[in-house]
């Protein structure tokens, strides 16, 4: 892949087209359970609105989460015809990348696509396969797209591994994991459980990283009860702000689980979590490791060294973490735009970049803006 602008977004959201699932899943077998867009009435709007429905359950308060791609920023489309092609059509989406002067982007899900927990492993697997096939088409259009595979969590580990291998073959370049599957859904195992070892082994072999996005499925489960008195804006502020509380804990969990030493070539990427907190969490882990002599307890490698060897973290607006980069690890930092979500730097990402990186030497700049990502995703 050619680096033209010198900027790679390690966290963007790829929207699938409205027919992505209906054209790939058996109508005879799944009927109306297939993810698709339907028209409904919503008392908040004068006109009939459209929503995604999965397994007969209506999703969210819009038909596509893409406010920064809209002419009026902060407007969430209510009907599919309002959704810009640049959000879900790969050929047109390249234009949005050029407008923002971004070379490539890692694609996390948008709309239905993260998890499909409806109490039915076979249905989940069918949805995951359709999702992975549809998202792989982005990569088939251009190597500027870096898709991440969804996981059929409720299946056996053999089926999970087979699906990831299939997805990577089709062009995926990583997997999108939950921070603690056992908290996110009943019956699943936590990250340290040996159940997952074959998946970590497969990802290590395939050379693709494990990705956790924002709260990684733990929002609302691992948090203060949200106050009902908040307005929508306040509520959004509070819930986005506290997402990194989850990342701090999952990174500590990984460090103390022994998984990083067991799979020493497997990379873990924490998206939309920011950087500034990382040095204090590593300092806390190192501090506890020293005070409690944890090398006698099977944690042989110093926590901060484990982190630098195998963990990556993303940033977008901040300056705190940039100033602390030598303590975090400048080789472990990735820039992201979060297109097309509300917090995104699009379409003025370079303004945000200059704000964050003012005064940073060229070598470090290039690392965090694209070289680290190019190395991690083997973009050559």
């Amino acid at each position, binding site marked *: 892949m050619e680096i033209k602008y010198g900027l790679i977004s390690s966290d963007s959201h790829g929207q699938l087209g409205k027919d992505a699932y209906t054209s790939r899943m058996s109508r005879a077998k799944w009927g109306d359970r297939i993810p698709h867009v339907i028209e409904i009435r919503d008392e908040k709007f004068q006109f009939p609105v459209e929503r995604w429905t999965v397994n007969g359950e209506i999703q969210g308060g819009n038909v596509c989460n893409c406010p920064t791609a809209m002419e009026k920023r902060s407007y969430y489309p209510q009907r599919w015809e309002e959704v810009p092609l640049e959000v879900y059509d790969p050929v047109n989406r390249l234009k949005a990348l050029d407008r923002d002067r971004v070379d490539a982007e890692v694609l996390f899900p948008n709309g239905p696509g993260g998890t499909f927990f409806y109490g039915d492993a076979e249905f989940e697997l069918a949805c995951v396969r359709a999702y992975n096939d549809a998202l792989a088409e982005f990569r088939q259009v251009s190597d500027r797209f870096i898709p991440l595979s969804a996981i059929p969590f409720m299946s056996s580990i053999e089926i999970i591994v087979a699906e990831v291998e299939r997805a990577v073959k089709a062009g995926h370049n990583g997997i999108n994991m939950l921070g603690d599957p056992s908290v996110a859904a009943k019956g699943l195992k936590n*990250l340290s459980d040996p159940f997952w070892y074959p998946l970590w082994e497969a990802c290590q072999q395939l050379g693709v990283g494990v990705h956790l996005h924002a709260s990684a499925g733990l929002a609302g489960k691992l948090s203060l009860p949200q106050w009902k008195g908040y307005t929508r804006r306040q509520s959004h502020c509070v819930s986005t702000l*506290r997402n990194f*509380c989850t990342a701090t804990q999952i990174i500590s969990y990984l460090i*103390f689980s022994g998984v990083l030493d067991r799979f020493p070539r497997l990379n873990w990427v924490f998206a939309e979590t920011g950087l*500034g907190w990382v040095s204090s969490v590593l*300092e806390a882990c190192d501090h506890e490791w020293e005070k409690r002599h944890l090398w006698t307890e099977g944690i042989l490698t110093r926590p901060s060294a484990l982190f630098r060897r195998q963990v990556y973290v993303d940033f977008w607006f901040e300056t705190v973490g940039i100033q*602390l980069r030598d303590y975090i690890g400048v080789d472990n930092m990735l820039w992201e735009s979060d297109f097309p979500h509300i*917090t995104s730097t699009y379409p003025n990402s370079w303004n945000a970049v200059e704000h964050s990186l003012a005064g940073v030497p060229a070598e470090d700049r290039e690392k965090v803006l694209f070289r680290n990502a190019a190395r991690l995703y083997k973009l050559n």
Partner: protein
Amino acid sequence: MELKYGLISADDHVQEHPEVWTLRMSKQKWGDRIPHIERQPDGNDLWVMGGQKIKSSGLAAAGGVLSDRTQEPKRWEDVPPMVYNARERLKAMDANGVDYSVLYPTIAGLAAETFGKLDDPDLELACVQAYNDWLIEEWATVSPRLVPQCIVPIWPMEHAVAEIRRAVARGHKGVIYPASPMELRDVPHINEPVYDPLWATCEDLGVPLCFHSGASPKIQLQPGASFSPAVAAAFGGVVRSVSSIAVVANFLFSRVLYRFPKLKVVFAESSLGWGAYEIEYADYQSDADGLQSEGYPLKPSELFQRQCYFTCWYDRRSLKVRRYLGTANILWATNFPLATSTWPNSRQHIELSFGDIPEDEKRQMLWGNAARLYSL
């Protein structure tokens, strides 16, 4: 105030001894519901109330003063007196070169959450009052270097307010309240206006309101089944501190600070690094979400700097980004006697942490801010 060493620790813990409650609560009225220690069949001691183990802690938290920090005492006779006896504590402070120590509980909960879980408000009040009286009678009267902070019955508000007034009149200098009372028992969300008397009373009396980390175990990820006890404890230490991220996020947007502009709030055992990031993030996100349009006259960072404090104990790197929090908003601590404490080598830790910081800023963080906040 007399300073010999130039250090005030803004976050330490007292260990409640076996007679804190039994000596002060009516046996006739409360029977075996009074918090007390019972020897178990395996020879270990445990704190119990009404036949139930007090869940929030083991027998004692003294890891920081034991030769093996991965252990906690199992029987009362193994608990070092410096954690529960005021005179011995003063010696431990001298050994570490600390002038004043601001006190938080242990069995009553590191975040003072233990008795909030009781379903009997009268029992809750009786337990709280016994703790508050003990801290005055056996600690504060021994030396002004031991700075007492009261705990509070979380509900009803009349109990909370009356107890704060009573305790402060007896000499308490701070108020510890669990940050997520609605997770302890069925009470309203902390943002509801029914809590206004709590904020108003602290503001009125000029005492800081302290949220210590660990108030909501539900925010904290549980250790994996494969974690050894020492690794699980280390993990618990890290996630207890970061769990305050959610508490701070809620508090920056709840409007309580706007409505009570003279209220001072301490986020104890928080650590600074994530704090600086959270404050920068709060400013950015409130802007992205357009919160100004909903009447937020101050940015979260301005609000924080006007009214809030973080504590630090071993943070080195994070001090480099102290300007995001404000040098006037940082309190140094030793976290004595938890396993995470820098005791007895706090001086060395300070050398490492504060080495290249200008004297005037150093003075502020190591004692000046705390002296002002607690009116010492």
